[in-house]
Every structure is written in C-alpha cells, then in structure tokens.
C-alpha cells in the first residue's frame, strides 16, 4: 500500500458508507416525521412544551441531568422498564419530533424520566427532591441542588411558594426556603414529561404476552 491516492479513496469511501447508511438514509426516511392530529381532541401530538417547561429543559441541560437519567422507555420484555413503572408503552421516534434537543441519555444511575410527569405529579415532591434528594429518597446518590433555592427572611406572611421542609432540614426560625425561577422552570419541565398518547405505531408494538391473554393482545 504505497499509493497515497488509493489509500485516500478508501479512507473517504469507508466513512461515506456509514455516513450514508446511518445519518443520511435515516434523515431521508424519517427526518420529516409529522405530528398526529387527534380530531376528537382537536390537538396535535406530541404537544409542544409550554413556555415555562421549555425554560426548565434548559436548566435540565445546564445541570447535566442527562448523565444519570435516560429519557427512553424500552419495550416490555426488554429490561424491566414497564414493570418499574417508567412508562406504559415503549418510546417511539414520534415522541421526540417536537424537541429541539433530544435527550435520550445512556445512563441510569437514576431512574428513567421519560414519564416522570405522569408518576410524580406533585410540585412539592419535586421541590423537596431537588433541594435535597435525601428528604424524599433516603440513600439516593443524586446531587442536591440547594443553589436552585433561596433563603428569605419572612416578612409578614410567609410566601405561598416556600417549600415545606421536614425536620431537620428546616431553615432557622423567621426564615423560609423559596425556589428560584430556575427551580420552578425545572419542576415544570419534569411535570411535563409524559408520553401517554397512543400513536398508531405504538398500538402495534410488541407486547410480552401474558399467559392466557395472548389473543387479546394481538387484536
């Protein structure tokens, strides 16, 4: 192999091969996947993130949540995603088409968050969990985010936004812990995470047959 042009051609075509196969062909085949309009509800799915939640997604990105939390549910029978309650159905490509940045993630140091908005609906739970995960999930190794909160002196009435900390986490008398706008946005984002709509393609995906109900699943 002493001919540089030949080596160069080989180098070019090998990468061109995978670029065509992995990047280009998929961009052409489903890069223009469209939302589905549900006429009975007069809405199109997946829905756009509401404004506050969209800001919260930026907080999620800036704190690097993706490095411990995936946002993809594997099909029933492949892992235990469904049994752990991480989603009623497998995630499909259409779930992500409205997202400017897709945060599938590759790590589950913590649980999958694709449907966290459906499982943890309480704002208070999220606030306490972000302030210090030990409050809600003893033994968790998640990072605490006290810097998303501020300590305020209570003047007159206490703020309705203040979080209700249990002992021994409470602030000293006369003070309260109030979430910053970033915390509010992040919680709005987490609460918005739910893929509950059933698309035509999700109705046909493989479902592990449960003994005795096989026929029903195939309908």
């Amino acid at each position, binding site marked *: 192999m002493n001919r540089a042009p030949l*080596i160069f051609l080989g180098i*070019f075509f090998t990468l061109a091969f995978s670029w065509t196969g*992995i*990047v280009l062909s998929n*961009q052409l085949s489903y890069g223009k996947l469209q939302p589905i309009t549900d006429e009975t509800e007069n809405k199109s799915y997946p829905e756009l993130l509401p404004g506050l939640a969209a800001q919260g997604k930026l907080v999620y990105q800036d704190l690097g949540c993706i490095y411990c939390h995936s946002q993809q549910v594997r099909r029933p029978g492949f892992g235990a995603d469904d049994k752990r309650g991480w989603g009623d159905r497998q995630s499909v490509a259409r779930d992500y088409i409205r997202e*400017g*940045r897709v945060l599938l993630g590759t790590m589950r140091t913590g649980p999958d968050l694709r449907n966290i908005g459906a499982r943890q609906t309480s704002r208070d739970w999220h606030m306490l969990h972000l302030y210090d995960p030990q409050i809600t*999930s003893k033994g968790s190794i998640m990072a605490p985010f006290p810097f998303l909160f501020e300590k305020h002196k209570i003047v007159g009435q206490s703020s309705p936004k203040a979080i209700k900390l249990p002992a021994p986490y409470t602030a000293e008398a006369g003070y309260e812990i109030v979430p910053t706008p970033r915390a509010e946005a992040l919680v709005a984002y987490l609460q918005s995470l739910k893929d509950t709509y059933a698309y035509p393609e999700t109705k046909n995906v493989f479902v592990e047959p449960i003994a005795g109900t096989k026929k029903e699943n195939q309908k």
Partner: protein
Amino acid sequence: MATAPSLVASFDPTSSPDLVKRAELSEIDASTKIPVLFFLCSAVLWLLVGTAFALISSFKLHTPSFLGDIEWLTFGRARTAHLNSVIYGWSVNAAFAVAFWLMARLSRSVLRHSGLLMIAGAFWNIGVTIGIVGILAGDSTSIEWLEIPPYATPLLFVAYAFVGAWALITFRFGKSGHIYVSQWYLLAALFWFPWLYSVAQIMLILEPARGTVQALVNWWFAHNVLGLWFTPIGLAAAYYFIPKVLGKPIHSYYLSVLGFWSLALFYNWAGVHHLIGGPVPAWVISAGIAASFMMAIPVVVVGINHHMTMVGNFSALKYSPTLRFIVFGAVSYTITSLIGSVMADRQVSEVVHFTHFTVAHAHQGMYAFFTMVMFGSIYYILPRILLKEWPSAMLISVHFWTVSVGITVYVVALSIGGIKQGLEMNNADIPFLQVVANTIPYLLSRSMSGILITIGHLAFAVNFTWMLLRPRAAQKTAPTLFRTPPEMEVVR
C-alpha cells in the same frame, strides 16, 4: 534480521551505525521540537485538570453532599468538565504531538514553519478552556461528547483545520518512498475527524435534525471519535514503537493491511449499538450490532500482529518504559475491543446498557489503551526532541505501577458492579434505591483507584517538568531505563 539493530542499539538513540540516517532523523526531530513540546505541555496540564475533575465527580457519586452546595461543581457539570478536559484537552493534544512527530519521522520530512503550528495549538487550547469554563458555568449543550458550547467550537474547528492541513503537507513533502502502516492510520484519522465533527456540529447544534435522528448522529459521531480518531492514532503509535524499540520488523505486512481496512470498514457502523432498545429504526441497530461483531476481525488481526512481534522479547519489558506502557495499551486494546463486541449483543446490552459497566468499558478504551500508549510514546519522544534523558527512572516506575494497577482495579470493579446493577435493575422486585445502594461499594473502589491513578499522574507531571527544567548533560548520556540491560553492560 541480520541488519536489524540490537536491543541495546534501539534503546540508545546515539548508537545507530547509520550516521547519515541518524543525522537526518535528528534534523527531523529538531524541526518538530517546538510544536510537539507545546502540545505535550498542554496535554500534561489538561491531564492534571481532568484528573482533578475526575476525582471530584467520583467522590460525588458515592457521597453526594461532597461540595454539594457549589453549583459550578455539581455532578452533571464536574463529570462533563472531566470528560471534555481529558478528551479534548489531554488526549487530543497528546494525539497531535505524537501524530506530528510520527508523521515527520515516517515521511522523512522536516516540519516546515513549525512555529505557525503554535497558532493552531493556541487556538485549540483557548477553545477547550473557554469550552470547559462554559460547561462549568452552565452552558453545556448536554449532547454527549459534544458538550462544548457553540461559542467555543469554531475555534476548535479552525485549529483542527490548521493541524490537519499541516500534517498532510508534512506527508506530501516527505522523501520516503514507502508508506508505513502507522501513516495509513494517521492519514485516515486526520481526515475522518473533521468530517465527523462538522457533520455532528451541523446536524445537532446549528441546524438540528428532527427527533431521534439526532441520537443516531450523536452516536455515529461519539463512537467514531473513539474508533476513527483515537484508535487509529493509538494503533499508529503502537505499530511504530513496538518494532522500533525491539529492533525487529512487525510480524506481518499482510495482516496490517487486513487490520487497517477491516477497521475502516466496520468501526464506523458500530456506534449505533449505543441505541439498542431505543426509539430508532431497528435495522440500523441490527447493522450496528453486525458491525460491532465484525470488529473482532481487525482487533484479532491487529492483536496477532502486535503480540506476535512481542513474542520472544518479553524480557525487554523489564527495561524499556516505552515498551512497557505501549504493550499494556496494546493488550488492553485487544481485551476492551472484544468486550465491546460482546456488549453489542442484544441480550448483553439489555443488562449492561445504562450501567456503570459502560463507564468501565469507556475507561478501558480511552485510558488502559489510548492513554497508556500516549504515555509510552511520550517517554520515547521527549528525550529525542529535548536531547536530554528522563531525570528519574523511579518516578517512571511509580507512574507505571500506580496507573496500571489503578486502571485495572477501576475496570474490574466497575464492570462487576455494572453487571450486578444491570441484573438488579431488570428485576422489578428489587426497589430502585436498593439497586443504587448496591453500587456504592463499587463506586468507592473506583474512587480508591482514582487516587492511585492521580498519584501516577503527579509522578509523571513531576518527572516531565523536571526534565524540561534540568540542564542538558555535557557528555553523551544513556537512555533512562527501568534497569540496565545485561547487553548494555557488555557494551561498556
């Protein structure tokens, strides 16, 4: 074999019988001195920065309250700063240095206007610095391996274009009629990286593709950065230094051709195995799994070629620091790549995907293989461009033993912990927090091995700085080896 220099001759740069050739090589080495030294100094600095972030993130994972109040060092940011400083800071700078030096030597080409390369080097390092400060300040893109914020990436791109072009010019103006296997790998790597990087930047950040096409682009990029940029450079160095230090030719020319083209063909399809079970077309994943299995061919072929060259010469490992690090790296390459092929299997991935096993695997590739090869190369290159010897064989020894034991403990502990974590995670009867609690002993051993590796890096940095600062010896010096080989005593 009669003409091959003896073991001693290959250790000692001044004892080559062919003085004309030696003079030419010295001239080439001298021409690479300034840029190679610049890239190496930057690399060592980034290695220390990256190690510090590594320790911080590792501690945080078992003791989350450690530095928990500091937003800039929250786990998601410290971990990302670690990745980017060891990849774009340490590894790329070291790769540039080694690639330039190898390219100049193998092409028999004096590096022209090498001072200009410093501008590229400065751009690169300023870009990485801005990028890492940006990540710590909260501007990370949260795209794995591409976290550097978009305001710093143009700097990196310009710097890279410069470096790539310069290497090609060096190759083009070379006098060597023969293109050695290391050069194939270097040329390929230098061409592949900018293609990968620009496609990823365009389709993920400038004009993002829709939906999970982004994930495909992301893993096509991220896996190929390892396979088509760091791996070829690591292999190029191993292909050069193993025969060079031993003073014998590589085992088989035919195998090196086969190894190169099968790597080029299969590796670049393998990245999608990171999306097994994910919301992307099943056929792409199947193709990725097939390519990952096929990777066994280049790995076994390169393994045979490297290890068969070593056979019969293991005693040289007692003496040569370069060889010891590089052989450790080459063996790790074989092991980690074969594990990687197995990990792409759907049933295996069902367990180990999303766990610490993947982290162990990534470190085995980037550290036990690539970084060890870079250490070995630096131990060879630096005396030749500075014309002085390493001040302390003891520090080299400390460096080798701490990092090799450290990374072995790291990989073994996290691999076991990761498999356990994966099996437990797939059993919904075990509460999630219990799964987390069961990983903590393994995370603790990771921190312990991290401390060991840090000691090694400090020993290396001290030796490196000491070498830069010490005056050049007036008389002819012998290379720094772990111990004096018996043949050498006879020579004197």
